[in-house]
């Protein structure tokens, strides 16, 4: 399969359809779940999909394990290439890794201004353009509404798409809709997706879609064996 076809058939197109065209520039999206359910896998898949579309992605991490994150991207890429039987996979790989960068901080002493400054340096000195930023491992327990507002301004000023992961203490359920931990930040969050383990798979529930709060099953699932997002009821068309 060629790259174009791969982009067209990606299950993430369903996510875009469900959210009226996707996250959109200047907006913040959040993937929320308990620890170990698959937030990073989702984020890396979303980021990889952006990379396939020739967009540039910065993955900001707070974990200090850069090698680990780079490996995530490699694994997800290999898995997609295998599932799709991607043509010239190595060439595509060498092409897209130019557009990917991992930036590591310790959250304890990093401010939004600092992240912004480093990204600006990278854009100016490193000639790296940025469309999507993934912030994995951001601790919402230590966050403030003001700081989160800064992220929103940062996304809007630079027309970035900003994806966060949020680690919840417990599973959400259909009744509670927005997880209490995220409630204070909902004004700044455009898209909220909660990961729900149901049966063999982990389902992606859309909790907020731009101006509408609802709980709808997008009929997307995360297959824990391969850690890719896939369409429900289409076992064969996994990616």
């Amino acid at each position, binding site marked *: 399969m060629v790259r174009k076809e791969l982009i067209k058939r990606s299950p993430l197109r369903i996510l875009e359809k469900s959210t009226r065209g996707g996250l959109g520039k200047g907006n913040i999206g959040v993937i929320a779940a308990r620890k170990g359910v698959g937030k990073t896998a989702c984020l890396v898949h979303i980021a990889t999909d952006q990379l396939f579309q020739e967009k540039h992605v910065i993955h900001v991490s707070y974990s*200090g394990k*850069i090698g680990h*994150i780079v490996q995530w991207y490699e694994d997800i890429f290999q898995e997609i290439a295998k599932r799709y039987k991607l043509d010239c996979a190595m060439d595509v790989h060498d092409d897209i890794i130019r557009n990917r*960068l991992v930036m590591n*901080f*310790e959250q304890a*002493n990093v401010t939004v201004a600092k992240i912004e400054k*480093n990204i600006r340096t990278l854009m100016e000195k*490193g000639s790296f353009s940025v469309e999507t930023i993934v912030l994995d491992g951001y601790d919402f327990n230590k966050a403030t509404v003001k700081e989160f507002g800064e992220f929103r301004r940062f996304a809007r000023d630079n027309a970035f798409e900003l994806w966060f992961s949020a680690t919840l203490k417990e599973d959400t359920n259909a009744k509670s809709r927005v997880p209490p931990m995220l409630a204070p930040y909902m004004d700044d969050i455009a898209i909220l997706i909660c990961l729900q383990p149901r049966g063999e798979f982990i389902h992606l529930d859309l909790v907020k879609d731009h101006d509408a709060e609802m709980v709808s099953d997008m009929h997307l699932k995360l297959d824990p064996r391969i850690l890719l997002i896939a369409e429900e009821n289409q076992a064969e068309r996994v990616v």
Partner: protein
Amino acid sequence: MAFDISTMRNIGISAHIDSGKTTLSERILYYCNKIHAIHEVKGKDGVGATMDSMELERERGITIASAATNVEWRKHSINLIDTPGHVDFTIEVERALRVLDGAVLVLCSVGGVQSQSITVDRQLKRYKVPRVAFINKCDRAGANPYRVKEQLCEKLGHNAVLMQVPIGLEEKFAGMVDLVTMKALYFDGDHGEDMREEQIPADLREEAEARRVELIDAVSMYSDELAEAYLEGKETEEQIRTAVRKGVLSLDLTPVFVGTAYKNKGVQPLLDAVVEYLPSPRDRKYFALDLDNDEAEIPLEALDDKPTVALAFKLEDGHYGQLTYIRIYQGSLKKGDELTNIRSGKSFKVGRLVRMHASAMEDIQSAPCGDIVALFGVDCASGDTFAQGGLNYSLTSMFVPEPVISLAIKPKDNKSADNMSKALNRFSKEDPTFRSHVDAESKETIIRGMGELHLDIYIERMKREYNVEIETGQPQVAYRETITQRVEFDYTHRKQSGGSGQYGRVAGIMEPIHDRDYEFIDEIVGGVIPREFISSCDKGFKACLARGSIIGFPIVGVKITINDGQSHSVDSSDMAFQLAAIGAFRQAYARARPEILEPIMKVSIEGPAEFQGNALASINQRRGIIISTSEDNTFSRVDAEVPLAEMFGFSTVLRSITQGKANFTMEFARYGKVPASKCEELIKQYQEQAKKRA
């Protein structure tokens, strides 16, 4: 009385350049009474530290060759291997690591865990060397051993635990609290030779107690006895030490010590730790490969009465001829013993047997199992195995990377020419990553190695040690050629111009492979190419790999399958089929969309955060891909992949754009495709050169 192997330690000192490793070695020699005066690395007295045996190292303030030296501490025999600190000499480091039983990882209390420490640590892990860490330079401004300990955990993934708490820091650094004995240690005398135990200063009491709890928490998992005793509040010093030792030997725990070698503080407790926690040769498991049994792994036994198995890990050109450093893994060795060099099959008698001090030596009659000693006048190469009693064992061959850079050299006069070949012969025996050959076409002597600095050092050594004046060309990157498309070929070689004719036809498929350089598959059926000529075809194809047609570099990643052909009862010969294969290869190669590959290096730049922008820009200018950036408080690190061709002279550039405050390391990562514009440039250069030669 037989020598007790449990009192032997073979240790190395591994560290980042400039973290004070040579100074530390020097102090160790001093306290063990091996030397009678202390010299600094960049000594004002012009003498230099004793471990830096080579003049050049003295001048540059770095250690290139690993000298082994034997010292005694608390009735333990310690063989100390001073390992080089620069990444360009990693083969030297790795070779030294191969023979170590334990290591001291030296870190700078200001610089902390830097990119080179990560490389060195990875090497220690590869050879499963247990280690203790020593945080040096605690007297420097900005010293923060606590941060360095955290970095050991975070960046290197060690289970690091402080064994001592510093008393004061920076210029107030006075000594340390031993968390096992709960005593403060101070160092008196001109050179800190008198260690004094005192009560813990009142203001440090609480901190020390908290850190001791941390220590016991961390190590009690290695000893149930300690865990139980601790619950009852009855833990003994011995129980803690035993638990720490177990943790270290399991490669899981890194006890951390603090001090400043330069100011003579903390070296003796570190020596105690070496004796206490690092393994003896018997605590480690070593294996040999049985060459008579399909290279099956055979465990070696660290017993004196077993047949001897030893490894030559270092050759040195001494004043009295070639000196071969060996490590005895099994059995013992005495003068007059007969050994066999497994590689060459030659036997020899052990003549002079010596134990080395940095630049003096002591003649000995015998050496016990586990020891590191040197032999005189043995003809061998670095990495050879010596064995006794008919054993056909080889110690695992070390991982040797392929050179990535080459340089043409020319002697300025006849005298230099003679000495140059002597020097090259010596260096390539000493260092497997250094190679030299004479180019068949240009008749130039080409030397190859792992980086610019690597080759520079050898050129300097030629000048100093062999009086060779040479001219050098431009450094040349080791490019490769490869194919990208599957093509079929069908070629007939026919020659009938007088005498016996030549006839051979080969047909098949040429296609790219990724996991190896070359593969040959024979699918000939019905004998259309007679059996005896199949290997001729293989030979012919192989001959083509040496030189590609785009820019004249070796071809890699080609799979050839032959499935058809034809022969002639009279005119077919070995030569005819070789030529047919060569013709077929040329025909197919041109159509298989060949492309050029170049070595891509993994580059890490580290320095103060304010220079991150400049570092990023410098990578961007060099066709580099930035993989990641990392920042903590003041230090920033940029990891990138950059083509080697763009890295020439980078150290000078980096110095100027960061005011000398940043440093970088570089190692080979992989081969990558050369972009089209650069390809054209290379092809043009190659054609011009070809024209010139014609």
